[in-house]
């Protein structure tokens, strides 16, 4: 039973952390966009790059990390399903 509780707690912890990354890269970056406009990255003004490409890479990465970590967590905590 503890193992199950442990699984859920780890899931929540991972979810919260990844959502924090999502929040920073989207909303914090957008809030300070005008201040970040003095920097450039790969020829783009930095805020433009973040909103047009950078954030998208990070989103894909977040989901990839979540899927990989959770699929492993399932196995470790003995809740993984048998694949058909």
């Amino acid at each position, binding site marked *: 039973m503890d193992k199950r509780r442990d*699984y859920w707690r780890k899931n929540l912890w991972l979810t919260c952390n990844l959502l924090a990354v999502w929040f920073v890269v989207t909303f914090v970056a957008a809030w300070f966009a*005008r201040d970040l406009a003095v920097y450039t990255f790969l020829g783009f003004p930095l*805020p433009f790059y973040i909103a047009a490409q950078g954030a998208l890479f990070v*989103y894909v990465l977040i*989901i990839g990390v979540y*899927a990989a970590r959770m*699929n492993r967590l399932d196995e470790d905590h003995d809740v993984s399903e*048998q694949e058909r």
Partner: protein
Amino acid sequence: MRTFVQNLRRYYSFFTGGFVMFVLTLAVAEYMGMPEQWIGWTFMAATVLLYASIGTLTRTADVVEYYVAGRRVPAIYNGMATGADWMSAASFIGMAGTLYAKGYDGLAFVMGWTGGYVLVALLLAPYLRKFGEFTIPDFMGARYGGHAARSLAVVGTILASFTYVTAQIYGVGIITSRFLDINFETGVFVGLGGILVCSFLGGMRAVTWTQVAQYIILITAYLIPVVFMSYKVTNVPVPQLVYGSVLEKVTQRENEIMADPAQVSARTAYGQRAAALGKEIDGLQQPGNALPAELRQARIAQLSKERESAEAKSRPLTHHAEPFPGDSAAERDAARLNFIALTLCLMVGTAALPHVLIRYYTTPSVKQARESVFWSLLFISLLYFTAPAYAVFAKYEIYTNLIGSSIIELPNWVHSWAKLGLVKVEDINHDGILQLAELTLSPDVIVLATPEIAGLPYVVAGLVAAGGLAAALSTADGLLLTIANALSHDIYYKIINQNASTARRLAVTKGLLLAAALIAAYVASLKPDTILSMVAWAFSIAGACFFPALVLGIFWKRATQAGAVAGMIVGLGLTLYYLIAVKFFGMEPWFHIADVSAGIFGIPAGFLTIVLVSLLTPAPDPQTQALVEHVRYPRLKNPAV
């Protein structure tokens, strides 16, 4: 299972190869002198025929197949199907145009429509897959009990999906009328046929396998013109990498245009026109005017619209890359707040749109549902991170080659799109030269005209049209199926007649599908508003209605039926009230938030109401709590808590 996956790979490799051959053959035919009209028709006919044959081959009379494609769609294919399901006419045709018009501020759509998948992946998809029923109202019904939550969810589904599907059919009308040279209303009904051939016979199963094919067509069609454009301008065929340098050139050109006296004179002329229109409006508002009140109101409304557009043209242009431009600090702050509000509403809406969420019912396992969201976003990002490049390249071409050229010698594409009313040119300062303010572009025209702007052969324009059609058809199919399933499964089967036979349930679904499609086509043929603003409404509606109840239903065992029902009513009610009051009754916006972001009020209100009302009502029964426990773990050996 293994041979099924192998076969899939074989079919779709064969299909992709065949499609490339088809395009190349047409290119050769064009070179040998095949007329443009024929190319347009061939593209339309061939792709629709293809969808129709997939739709017919995968017809089914099995409920699990019809509603959730037999739950055996592998993660990667479900990812492609979700991509096509998701990317609508607005994404394909409208988004690059919006980015062209709005610059940085338009990127709210890029982030909103991709970042929403983070919420889908982390908060919803794996749990809904474990729950494993047929529709989103199903989850509401099971989790919160009774018919109230289920029925409300059906109302939300229809409100969100119907505006959305209307926009898709409108997009189909625009594309078919331009490329088949028929009138818009006929185009709408031709498109309707294209939609129904996929979904009618095979339900979700047919829609899934057609969508995979449609994804391949739409992504190819989206990438090719901009790759050529990039090669033409920078000699590097990877537009996403190099458009930073083009953006720099656009900024330079913007500075020149701002300073050029001829440009200033055109802007001044529009300023004078706006002032004149203002005087005329004032005159009409004076008491003692001879016109009857009704006519006067209509005239005032029309003049106000003209004044607004003239005023917009009189303003100096803003830099494409500048975030939140504005004349004063207050204006800039309002723009920033709106950007953030819109991004949030689009994200939450993405994570709550039923036609996307039900796609995750179709994977074989929870594990694959998680992986499938990854593939979905990867395939979707391919388009979304190209769209800003489209906008920048188009702006570069138009600012450097079109602006400043003689009005009697404008290129052909301007005339062909002007015929449809999507491009307007007016020589307001009578100098015979085109100034920026004198050019009006509909956002929809950027993607559709890029092949012609880049001077590519007509076959590429045909390919883009086929891609836009694929985007609109695939989304419309997913939406219509969602509407029909919500009505037939949740209302008819679960509430009205629980003893209905399989054959009868499917017959009802098909009847409703047809009815919904016809009504949507009729509404679309009336040409209401522009595609993008209508679609953006659906996000606030879906976000406020579903998201709080879904997330709390999974993550908070204490959420009760009364809480969920109250939360959905408050969230949806507040959002609709704000949308309608601001858009149609001229209500002063709260905190300067635009009507499309109405969800920014509705979503938190929904969460708050669910929490408060749940705490005031008794905790859910053990059976419901066990259901929550059940969806949280991919497999439980001993279900007792």
